């Protein structure tokens, strides 16, 4: 079953799977932007798969170089080449398993996102298959929006974290990690909040 975890961010209207929509928009509400993590974050999460994929191609030649003293061991390692059908079988299945893992990573990357609307921020998190969390955060409750860019790559490529804090009895926060152009996102959220307050005053 799809899990919508209980969270302080949850609002009853935010979660609706009717017509395959996860949250219906209010009257006058429109989606301003949909945000995902920066492509570099995805790239970094692929690196372990790439490393594991090339490992079977690197290890045999390395071991052959080390084990030249024993002809029997050399003969064994000589079999670990792509000309050996059994090794190709292993390699193909190994790569297939890694591909499934990498595709799973991409699926999670893509299904995890934030939606900024004129009234709220909606966070959609896919923790795993059949484990999904949809939570929303009303912009009128926002007290502070801060950004942070941490690290060389984050600084060079322009991705970082946006942290939104609410006013109220208990200070709570909402983080968007690894998103592109965090300052632009902060400005967007602040402008939406300003527009909301302006509409309120007009009414």
């Amino acid at each position, binding site marked *: 079953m799809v899990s919508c975890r209980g969270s302080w961010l949850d609002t009853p209207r935010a979660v609706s799977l009717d017509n*395959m929509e*996860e949250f219906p928009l209010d009257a006058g509400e429109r989606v301003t932007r949909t945000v995902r993590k920066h492509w570099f974050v995805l790239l970094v999460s692929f690196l372990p798969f790439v490393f594991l994929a090339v490992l079977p191609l690197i290890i045999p030649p390395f071991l052959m170089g080390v084990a030249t003293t024993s*002809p*029997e061991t050399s*003969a*064994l390692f000589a*079999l670990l080449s792509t000309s*050996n*059908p*059994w090794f*190709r*079988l*292993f*390699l*193909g*299945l190994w*790569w*297939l398993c890694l*591909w*499934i893992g990498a*595709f*799973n990573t*991409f*699926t999670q990357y*893509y*299904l995890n996102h934030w939606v900024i609307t004129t009234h709220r921020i909606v966070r*959609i998190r*896919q923790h795993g*298959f*059949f484990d*999904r969390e949809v939570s929303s955060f009303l912009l009128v409750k926002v007290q502070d929006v801060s950004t942070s860019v941490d690290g060389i790559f984050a600084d060079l490529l322009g991705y970082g974290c946006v942290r939104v804090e609410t006013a109220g009895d208990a200070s709570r926060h909402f983080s968007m990690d690894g998103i592109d152009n965090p300052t632009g996102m902060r400005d967007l959220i602040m402008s939406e909040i300003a527009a909301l307050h302006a509409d309120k005053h007009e009414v």
Partner: protein
Amino acid sequence: MQTGSEGVYDPTLFLRGVDIESVLSIGFLVLFVIWSIYTLIATYHWFRYGHRSSVAIPALLIHGVVSWLLAGYAASGLIG
């Protein structure tokens, strides 16, 4: 030590008694079942939560094509 007919050490000698077709059939059947279940679940999630996106269909097509290419590569030395 295992030696072949010419008395030379052959570490794959133990594989000679293995029926390759049976190994391949069972191995690929198991893998195909696992792969199918995974693909069905992934497809369900893409269509349910990413159906509005133009990425969903190409992503699933690429998954299918790459998977079959890798499976083909795995079997390439032992079939045909």
